[in-house]
C-alpha cells in the first residue's frame, strides 16, 4: 500500500510570533509560526488579521525574531529551526544581542555576551548568579532609549539586572484563589517602545497580563513596577502593534483536536466531522463541514419568482453598489442601496420588461439589456434606445465597461462605447447555431478593449476559436489568474459550465486565443450557472449548481470550494458599507444578501460550549445522539465552586443545587473563557457526561461525576443482560474512571467501571452500577461479543454485565505498560500499548483464555489506533508519526483522516494504481532536490525524525510544485516525461479525489 499524505486544514495553533515591518517601511505585520508553517499576517482596515503569505517549511520552527540591518527601513525575520543551518538549535532563550541562562550547573547564571559586528563573533562580558526559578529574559533597550540591561522573569519575581548595577526585584501580583504552594510564572512578553516612555507587557501562566515599567534616574534603575493590566487566555506569544493592537497568539484557542468522528447523522450531501476541541473552560464540540461558512445578512420575500438579479454602481470609482436590479419573467424591480434597501423608480431602468443584463459603462452611464433592445442611460439622464430589428429577441448578453455583446438566436452583435459616450454597433457574426451563453472578460488594465469573446452554442461547442465540448454549455465566465494575479502577465482562464454539471476550466492564450490545458470537475446535478463576484478584491467566480461553489485564486492556486448554504437560483456580486465583499442571490422567491467569511478555510464549523476538556466521543448507533465525556485535572467540580454559588446568590433566587452549568449562561461562559477557572489541587478532578443532539447541537442531558473521579475512557457496548436467557442484548454506556489520578508517576486511589442505562431514546442516562477494579486507571474499553473488554493499567480483562456489578470473566496480565487503546473485530482483539505498539490477541472461548499471537517489533508510543481491515491497523503515536501495520497483504482502499493536537486536519489516501504511486514518488524525489524546504531542513530527515518514512508520499511538498521556478518546473516535468501542465493536473486531481 502506497499512501499519499495531504494536509486538508493546516494547524491553527500559533507557537511563536514576532512583530515588525516586513513588506514595507510602515507595514504593521506579524510573522507567526504554526509548527511547520510560516505565515505573514497583517491587520486590515476592519481590524481583522489577514494571511498575506503562508508557506510550509518542513522543519520545526523554534524561534522567530525580527532583525533590521542598520539604516534599512524594513525588517528581516530570523528563523531558529531544527535544520542545523539557521541561527537557532539552542534551547536557551536568546535575545537581540545578548543571551544567557546556563542550566548545566545547579545555580543558574546570567551571562552577558556582546556581538562584535566587525569580527562576527560573540564575546562573553560578565556573568552573575541569578534566581533559580528564572525562566525568561526580556531585553531592556539601552543607549539613548533606556537604561539597558535585562529583566529576568523568575517564578513569582521580576528582577532587573545589569552590569555593575544592583539587582532590583519586584513581586508579581497573585490571584486570590491560588493555592499557596503554586508559583506564578511568566510565559510570554511584549515590549512597547515609544519616545516618551517604554513599557513591557508580561503574561502569567494563568493568563493575567501585567504592565511592567522601570523607574530610572539616568542609568540607574530605582524600581521595577508591576501592575495588573488585563486577562486574556494564556498565550504562546504576544506583541504590541504600533497601531495600538495587542496581538495575542493563544496557546489554545478552540483549535486543539482530541477526537473526532466522521459521520452523516443529519443525512446531508457530505458527511460531517464531529470534533472535540479546546481545553478547560474553552472546550467545545464542533461540527465541521467541508465548505465555506456563509453569513446571511438579509433575506426578504419578493412578489413572484425572480429570474435574475444584478448589482450596479453609480460611478466607476465607487466602492459600493448603488442598485440591486431584480428581473422577473415580465417585469423588473430596482432597489436602491442606502442605510436600508428600498424599492425605487427613478433609476432610469425600464420596469415593464425583464432584464437580461445590467452594466455601468466607463463614462458612468448605465446600460440595461432587455429582450427588446438596449437601454443606455447617460449620466445626464438622457436615454438612448437601440431596438432589435424585426421580430427577433435578445436571448443572451454580456458586457464589460467598454464592450457589449448580445445574442439574437444564432447571431452575435457586438457594440463598443465610443469616446463620445455612444454605443456603436461594431460587428455582427453568425454562429451557425443558437447561442447558449456568452462571456467577455473585463478590460485589462492599460488596454482599450478585451480581445476575446467566448461564445457557447447549443451544438456543444465553445468558441473563442471553436472547440468541441462533451455536453451543451450552460454558462461561461472568463477570469484572470495564475502567479501574477491581476497584473499584465496574468493568465486568462475560460470557465465553461456544462449542462451535465461539469465545470471545465481552460487557459486562453493571450495572443492567439487558443484554448489549452483543460481541467474538469463535477459540481452538482443542476447545470451550473457562473457569476463574477469579488473575493479579496479580485474577480472570482460563484458557481450555482445543486449547491453553490466559490472559485477563487488562493495564493496563486485556483481553488473551488463548496459553500455551506442551500442551492441558489441566480446571484450577483454586491458591495456596500456593511458588506464590502458579498453577493445578492435569489432563491425560491426571496432576495438574500450573503457574505462569505474566512475565505480559504477548507472547513466551516458550528460550535457548542462544553464544561471541561472533552476526552471521549461516542455516537449512539440507533438514536444518533452524541455522548461526550469531559474531565479536567486540577480543576474544581461545578458543585464545589464557591465563586459560582456566590454569584448565583448575589443575583438572587436560585438554590445552589440548581446550578445548571456555566456553559449554559453565555455571560458567565464568556467571562470564564477569558479568565480561566480557579485552580484545584493536583489529583483533584472534575468530570461530567453529556448527551448532545447533533441536529440542534444542544445539550439534552448532562451529569456530573462524584467521588473525585476523572473519565479515562468511554464506550457504547451492547451487553447481554444478566436476567435474560435468550441472549438479549442492551446497549449500555460504559465509562472507565480513576479517582484522584496524579501524574509523575501516574497513580490513582481507585479505578471504577460505571455502567449507565440509556433512556428516553438516547436522551437520558441512569447509573446502573459502579464496579471498583484494580490494576490501574481504566484506559480503554471495547465491546466484545456481548461482553466488555477493559484495559485496567496493564491488565486486559473481560467483563460480563451483572445485576449489582460487572463480573470479571477472564484476564491477561502480561501486557507491557498501559493499555491505551482497544479494538475488536470478530474474535480478534487489537491492543495498543502506551509504549510498546500494537498487540494482536485472540480469545479462546473453550479454555476461557486470552493470548497474544502477534505484536509489533518497534516500540511505538500509541495514542490512537484505527482498524482498517481484519489484518491492518493505522497507528498514530505520541511523537506525531502515523504508521500502517499489517499482518499479510490485501487491504481495501480507504482514506484515513486524522486530527492533531495543534488543530490540523490531514488525510492519507492510498494510491489506486502503481503508476500513480511511481509518479508521485518520483515527483517527491525531484521536489526534494530542486525545491528544498525554505529553512534548509533536509526534507527526508524531517519526515523520518522518529521512524524512517516508507511508502508514503508527502503531498504537501508536491503541492509546492507550482511555486517552483518555471525552468525548474519544466526540467522536473521533463524528467517525469510529462509537461508542467500535466503535473499540475495530476496534483489537482488527487486533491479533488480526497476532498
Amino acid at each position, binding site marked *: 500500500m502506497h499512501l499519499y499524505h495531504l494536509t486538508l486544514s493546516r494547524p491553527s*495553533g500559533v*507557537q511563536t510570533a514576532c512583530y515588525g515591518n516586513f513588506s514595507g517601511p510602515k507595514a504593521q505585520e506579524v510573522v507567526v509560526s504554526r*509548527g511547520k508553517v510560516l505565515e505573514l499576517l497583517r491587520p486590515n482596515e476592519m481590524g481583522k488579521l489577514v494571511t498575506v503569505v503562508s508557506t510550509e517549511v518542513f522543519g*520545526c520552527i*523554534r524561534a522567530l525574531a525580527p532583525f533590521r540591518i542598520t539604516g534599512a527601513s524594513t525588517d528581516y525575520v530570523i528563523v531558529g529551526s*531544527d535544520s542545523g543551518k539557521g541561527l537557532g538549535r539552542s*534551547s536557551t532563550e536568546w535575545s537581540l544581542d545578548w543571551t544567557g541562562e546556563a*542550566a548545566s550547573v*545547579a545555580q543558574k547564571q546570567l551571562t552577558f555576551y556582546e556581538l562584535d559586528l566587525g569580527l562576527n563573533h560573540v564575546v562573553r562580558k560578565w556573568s552573575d548568579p541569578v534566581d533559580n526559578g528564572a*525562566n525568561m529574559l526580556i531585553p531592556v533597550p539601552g543607549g539613548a532609549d533606556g537604561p539597558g540591561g535585562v529583566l529576568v522573569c523568575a*517564578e513569582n519575581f521580576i528582577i532587573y539586572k545589569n552590569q555593575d548595577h544592583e539587582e532590583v526585584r519586584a513581586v508579581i501580583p497573585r490571584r486570590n484563589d491560588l493555592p499557596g504552594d503554586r508559583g506564578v*510564572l*511568566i*510565559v*510570554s512578553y511584549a515590549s512597547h517602545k515609544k519616545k516618551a516612555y517604554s513599557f513591557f507587557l508580561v503574561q502569567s*501562566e*494563568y*493568563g493575567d497580563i501585567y504592565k511592567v515599567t522601570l523607574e530610572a534616574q539616568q542609568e540607574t534603575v530605582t524600581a521595577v513596577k508591576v501592575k495588573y493590566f488585563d486577562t486574556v487566555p*494564556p498565550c*504562546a506569544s504576544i506583541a504590541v502593534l504600533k497601531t495600538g493592537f495587542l496581538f495575542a497568539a493563544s*496557546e*489554545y484557542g478552540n483549535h*486543539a483536536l*482530541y477526537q473526532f468522528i466522521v459521520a452523516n447523522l443529519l443525512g446531508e450531501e457530505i458527511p460531517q466531522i464531529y470534533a472535540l476541541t479546546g*481545553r*478547560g473552560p474553552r472546550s467545545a464540540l464542533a461540527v465541521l463541514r467541508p465548505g465555506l461558512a456563509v453569513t446571511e445578512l438579509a433575506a426578504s420575500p419578493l412578489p413572484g419568482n425572480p429570474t435574475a438579479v444584478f448589482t450596479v454602481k453609480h460611478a466607476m470609482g465607487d466602492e459600493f453598489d448603488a442598485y440591486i436590479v431584480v428581473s422577473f419573467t415580465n417585469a423588473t424591480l430596482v432597489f436602491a442601496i442606502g442605510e436600508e434597501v428600498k424599492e425605487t423608480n427613478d433609476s432610469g431602468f425600464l420596469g415593464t420588461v425583464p432584464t437580461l443584463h445590467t452594466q455601468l459603462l466607463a463614462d458612468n452611464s448605465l446600460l440595461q439589456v432587455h429582450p427588446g433592445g438596449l437601454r443606455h442611460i447617460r449620466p445626464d439622464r438622457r436615454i438612448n434606445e437601440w431596438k432589435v430589428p424585426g421580430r427577433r429577441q435578445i436571448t443572451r448578453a454580456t458586457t464589460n465597461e467598454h464592450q457589449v455583446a448580445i445574442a439574437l438566436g444564432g447571431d452575435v452583435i457586438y457594440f463598443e462605447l465610443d469616446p463620445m459616450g455612444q454605443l456603436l454597433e461594431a460587428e455582427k457574426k453568425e454562429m451557425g447555431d443558437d447561442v447558449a451563453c456568452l462571456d467577455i472578460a473585463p478590460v485589462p488594465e492599460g488596454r482599450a478593449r478585451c480581445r476575446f469573446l467566448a461564445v457557447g452554442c447549443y451544438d456543444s461547442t465553445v468558441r473563442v476559436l471553436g472547440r468541441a465540448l462533451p455536453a451543451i454549455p450552460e454558462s461561461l465566465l472568463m477570469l484572470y489568474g495564475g502567479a501574477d494575479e491581476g497584473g499584465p502577465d496574468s493568465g486568462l482562464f475560460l470557465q465553461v459550465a456544462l449542462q451535465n454539471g461539469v465545470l471545465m476550466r481552460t487557459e486562453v492564450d493571450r495572443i492567439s486565443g487558443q484554448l489549452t490545458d483543460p481541467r474538469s470537475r463535477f459540481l452538482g446535478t443542476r447545470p451550473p450557472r457562473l457569476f463574477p463576484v469579488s473575493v479579496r478584491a479580485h474577480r472570482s467566480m460563484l458557481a450555482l449548481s445543486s449547491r453553490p461553489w466559490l472559485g477563487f485564486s488562493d495564493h496563486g492556486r485556483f481553488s473551488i470550494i463548496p459553500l455551506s448554504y442551500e442551492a441558489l437560483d441566480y446571484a450577483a456580486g454586491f458591495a456596500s458599507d456593511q458588506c464590502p465583499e458579498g453577493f445578492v442571490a435569489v432563491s425560491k422567491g426571496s432576495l438574500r444578501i450573503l457574505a462569505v467569511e474566512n475565505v480559504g478555510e477548507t472547513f466551516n464549523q458550528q460550535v457548542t460550549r462544553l464544561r471541561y*476538556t472533552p476526552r471521549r466521543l461516542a455516537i449512539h448507533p440507533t438514536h444518533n445522539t452524541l455522548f461526550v465525556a469531559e474531565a*479536567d*485535572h*486540577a*480543576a474544581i467540580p461545578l458543585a464545589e465552586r464557591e465563586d459560582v454559588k456566590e454569584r448565583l446568590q448575589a443575583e438572587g433566587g436560585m438554590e445552589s443545587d440548581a446550578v445548571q452549568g456555566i456553559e449554559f449562561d453565555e455571560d458567565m461562559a464568556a467571562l470564564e473563557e477569558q479568565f480561566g477557572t480557579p485552580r484545584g489541587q493536583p489529583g483533584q478532578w472534575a468530570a461530567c457526561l453529556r448527551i448532545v443532539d447533533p441536529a440542534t447541537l444542544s445539550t439534552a442531558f448532562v451529569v456530573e461525576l462524584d467521588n473525585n473521579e476523572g473519565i479515562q475512557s468511554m464506550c457504547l457496548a451492547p451487553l447481554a443482560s444478566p436476567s435474560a436467557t435468550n441472549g438479549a442484548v442492551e446497549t449500555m454506556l460504559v465509562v472507565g474512571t480513576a479517582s484522584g489520578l496524579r*501524574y509523575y508517576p501516574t497513580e490513582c486511589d481507585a479505578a471504577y467501571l460505571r455502567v449507565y442505562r440509556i433512556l428516553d431514546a438516547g436522551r437520558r442516562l441512569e447509573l446502573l452500577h459502579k464496579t471498583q477494579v484494580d490494576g490501574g486507571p481504566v484506559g480503554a474499553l471495547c465491546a466484545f461479543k456481548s461482553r466488555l473488554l477493559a484495559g485496567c493499567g496493564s491488565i486486559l480483562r473481560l467483563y460480563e454485565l451483572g445485576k449489582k456489578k460487572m463480573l470479571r470473566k477472564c484476564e491477561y496480565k502480561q501486557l507491557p505498560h498501559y493499555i491505551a487503546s482497544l479494538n475488536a473485530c470478530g474474535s480478534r482483539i487489537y491492543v495498543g500499548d502506551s509504549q510498546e505498539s500494537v498487540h494482536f490477541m485472540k480469545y479462546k472461548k473453550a479454555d476461557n483464555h486470552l493470548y497474544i499471537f502477534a505484536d509489533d517489533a518497534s516500540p511505538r508510543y500509541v495514542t490512537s489506533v484505527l482498524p482498517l481491515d481484519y489484518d491492518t491497523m493505522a497507528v498514530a503515536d*505520541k*511523537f*506525531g508519526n502515523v504508521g500502517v501495520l499489517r499482518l499479510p497483504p490485501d487491504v481495501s482502499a480507504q482514506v484515513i483522516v486524522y486530527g*492533531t*493536537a*495543534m488543530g490540523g486536519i490531514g488525510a492519507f489516501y492510498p494510491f489506486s494504481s502503481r503508476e500513480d504511486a511511481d509518479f508521485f514518488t518520483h515527483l517527491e524525489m525531484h521536489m526534494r532536490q530542486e525545491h528544498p524546504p525554505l529553512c534548509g531542513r533536509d526534507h527526508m530527515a524531517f519526515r523520518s525524525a522518529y521512524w524512517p518514512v516508507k511508502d508514503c508520499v508527502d503531498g504537501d511538498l508536491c503541492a509546492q510544485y507550482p511555486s517552483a521556478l518555471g525552468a525548474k518546473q519544466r526540467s522536473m516535468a521533463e524528467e517525469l516525461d510529462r509537461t508542467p501542465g500535466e503535473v499540475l493536473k495530476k496534483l489537482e486531481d488527487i486533491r479533488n479525489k480526497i476532498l
Partner: protein
Amino acid sequence: MATLSDRMSINTQIEHLQSKYVGTGHPDISRFEWALNIHRDSYASYIGHHPMLAYFSTVENESIGRVKYDFLQKMLLPCGIPPKPQDAEEEEEEEMEDQGKK
C-alpha cells in the same frame, strides 16, 4: 579482516560522534549515565517540539509555558541524585565494617 587503519578510522569516527553528540556513550558508561542521557534527550525533544508540550499541558491542565519550565528544571537531575562512584561506595562500606569491628 579489519586492518589497523580501519580500526583507527572507527576510533576517530566514534570520537567525532562523541564530540558532536553529548549522549553517544562509551563502553564503560554506567547505568545511571545512560539513563541520564536518555532522559535529558527526551526532555530536550519535548521542549523542542511545541505540539508535544501542548500534548502534555492538556493532560496536566497546565499552561504550555509552565510545562516547558518544569521540563527544563527536570533536565538538571532527571534521575535523582547521582549515585556515589563505585570506589567511594566500597570505601564507605569498609569504614562501616571497620566501625562494626570496633
